[in-house]
């Protein structure tokens, strides 16, 4: 009896997820190479057709967020399509996107002269079904604004990324997830000098219908790889 009840509840949960636009793993199929992190998402699939919020307080964090976004975009753009990158003060260096498997010429950069137009352009782009993904670099995002963006993607199923820079105060938004990405020390084989592969500590503090958590990821051979956190090296300054 109890098992039957549980089955009904699970079925209902699945239905609700489907209505909310989260596809089951078998149909979605796309593998985002996020490794164990994907277990955090509903149905264990990175939610496309939703707004993801990345929060950064420092330039290095913004760069780290850029790396993660570029890595996810690679999968989104695999089947063709283009990406729109909206920004007010853009520092993204297009040739570097290639390192994350993203062809820079498939990205349309929109540099908006007025900050208030950033979200307008974002919304317009999100409404357009021919776009695979939209990235928006902005500063503030109120609940109302995030709700508008969310409504736009519910119609068009475009994936949106909001990269909020220099956030002083966090507020509630209607985004599906909230990510904090911090760069952490890279690690090479013991005794090897130099800088290793890009490595980040990803905090997924909010994920709708999922389980938040913390992971350490590394970008290795065109996909993300989970690694054990960095342990203190036995010897610093070994290159000098």
């Amino acid at each position, binding site marked *: 009896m109890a098992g039957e009840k549980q089955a009904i509840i699970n079925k209902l949960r699945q239905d609700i997820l489907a209505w909310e636009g989260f596809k089951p793993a078998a149909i979605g199929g796309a593998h985002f190479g996020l490794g164990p992190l994907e277990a955090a998402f509903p149905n264990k699939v990175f939610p496309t057709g939703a707004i993801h919020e990345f929060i950064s307080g420092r*330039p290095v964090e913004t760069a780290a967020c850029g790396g993660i976004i570029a890595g996810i975009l690679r999968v989104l753009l695999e089947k063709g399509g283009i990406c729109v990158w909206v920004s007010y003060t853009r520092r993204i260096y297009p040739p570097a996107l290639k390192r994350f498997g993203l062809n820079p010429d498939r990205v349309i950069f929109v540099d908006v002269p*007025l900050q208030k137009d950033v979200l307008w352009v974002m919304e317009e782009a999100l409404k357009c079904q021919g776009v695979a993904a939209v990235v928006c670099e902005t500063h503030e995002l109120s609940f109302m604004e995030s709700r508008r963006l969310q409504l736009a993607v519910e119609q068009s199923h475009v994936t949106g990324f909001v990269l909020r820079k220099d956030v002083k105060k966090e507020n509630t938004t209607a985004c599906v997830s909230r990510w904090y990405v911090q760069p952490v020390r890279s690690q090479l084989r013991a005794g090897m000098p130099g800088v290793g592969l*890009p490595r980040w500590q990803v905090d997924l503090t909010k994920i709708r219908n999922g389980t938040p958590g913390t992971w350490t990821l590394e970008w290795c051979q065109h996909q993300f790889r989970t690694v054990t956190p960095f342990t203190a090296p036995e010897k610093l300054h070994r290159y000098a």
Partner: protein
Amino acid sequence: MPKRFLSLWFRYLLTDWKAVRQPELRGKPFVFAEPNHGRLIVKAATATAQQFGIEEGMTVADAKVIAPDLTVFDHKKGREIKLLGGLAEWCLRYTPLIMLDPPDGLLLDITGCAHLRGGEREYLKDMITRLKDIGYDVRPAIADTIGCAWGVARCAQKGLIVPEGGHRNALMPLPPSALRLPMDLLMKLQNLGLDKVSSFVHMPHSVLRRRFQKELVLRLLQALGQEEEFLIPLKETVPYSERLECLEPVRTREAIEIAVFKLLDALCKRLYGEGKGLRQSELIWFRIDGKKGQIAIGTSQASNRTDHLFKLFSLKFDQIEPALGIELFVLEASLVEAVNDKQAGLWAGKPGLESEEIAELIDRIMGRIGNEGIRRYQPSEHYWPERAAAPGGHEDNRIDGEWWNDRPRPIQLLEQPELIQAMALTPDYPPKMFTYRGKRHVIVAADGPERIEREWWLDPGEHRDYYVVEDEEGGRYWLFRSGHYDSKEQQLWYLHGYFA
């Protein structure tokens, strides 16, 4: 269909204009004068002044004797052309083909236009009444040829609308001055007693040519319609244009939206039928107070979709100032291209740079933020980081070259490298520590140097030695030292980017 021409003669063009600007001068005698060999010569006089006997070419001193309370204004060269230009633009509401006829007239090709206002008589009446309301005294004439219309407007007392085919009869009783002839020819004709067109129209052309040069024959033939004469329109007519006249002047946004949608719908239907799409379009509106304005849109791909074009226009509706009301809308497609014959339904939703949806999205963004902000990058064969990606237009689809991936490049590049305080213990080794904006970063790992030479043929300066460094907190930076290591001089270190 026979051609019909309308000639407008502004008898008191300059003085009427002055009276319009200064209503207190209306009905008063005043003249425009310009200096000529140390004397002031009358250039234009009002009707009242002409009743006194003041004429063009008289000296102001003489005129003042006749009419002591005469007011004299300075004449400015070229003003009448400017005025005529303004009047011609005003007349565009009656016909698109208008030619200036200096010094004091306009020529309009009204073929096929008059029936829109219920016949030539009503057409003319409407135009003349409106011009009179503004304050211009004008004499019109409609005829089959330009020459005839010109002559009838200036010389005939009645019968200003010459019926079709009647231009020959209308010319007969007119004096030779109706034929647009120079003064010396007119004198000669007068001396010979040829005071009417009918008195010499039957003479053989060879005789006329011998006596009065070929000018007379040419003008005569033109007036009779035996020699073709062309009207060079003031404004090139746009082949794809739509007009909408409002019965009542419109002021509300809804009304303007309806008007624009109607115009676009008609234009797009026509374009669609011809397999064309528009790239540039202007919406021009005429207000009842005589002002006009326009908004323009551009598209990145030829389009004939009403909804899309309407959206582009609606982004700019805020610029329309209807004031008292708009009486006429004109929509022109100034640049038209063949449109790719796509089945819109089939292509919708298919991603790709060529898709119509992307083009329409870009049009909308362009309408809001302008053309400069939208870029795509192409690989460019330069090692110098600032030049490695060439910004291009969003529509440029071909890619020359490859994106390089073999060198570490930061995901965020500062527009201008920022000066930092760095401490390097060993020459040509990465720094141990650097300070940027008051924060100390201790470097624990580094790669480099990667020397990038400056492209001396493009700009002079020092080369850069780049290092990828990682600080204790895990932040990865791209630093460079400008120039060679030199123990005597202080080294300049810069931060140029952040790695992911």
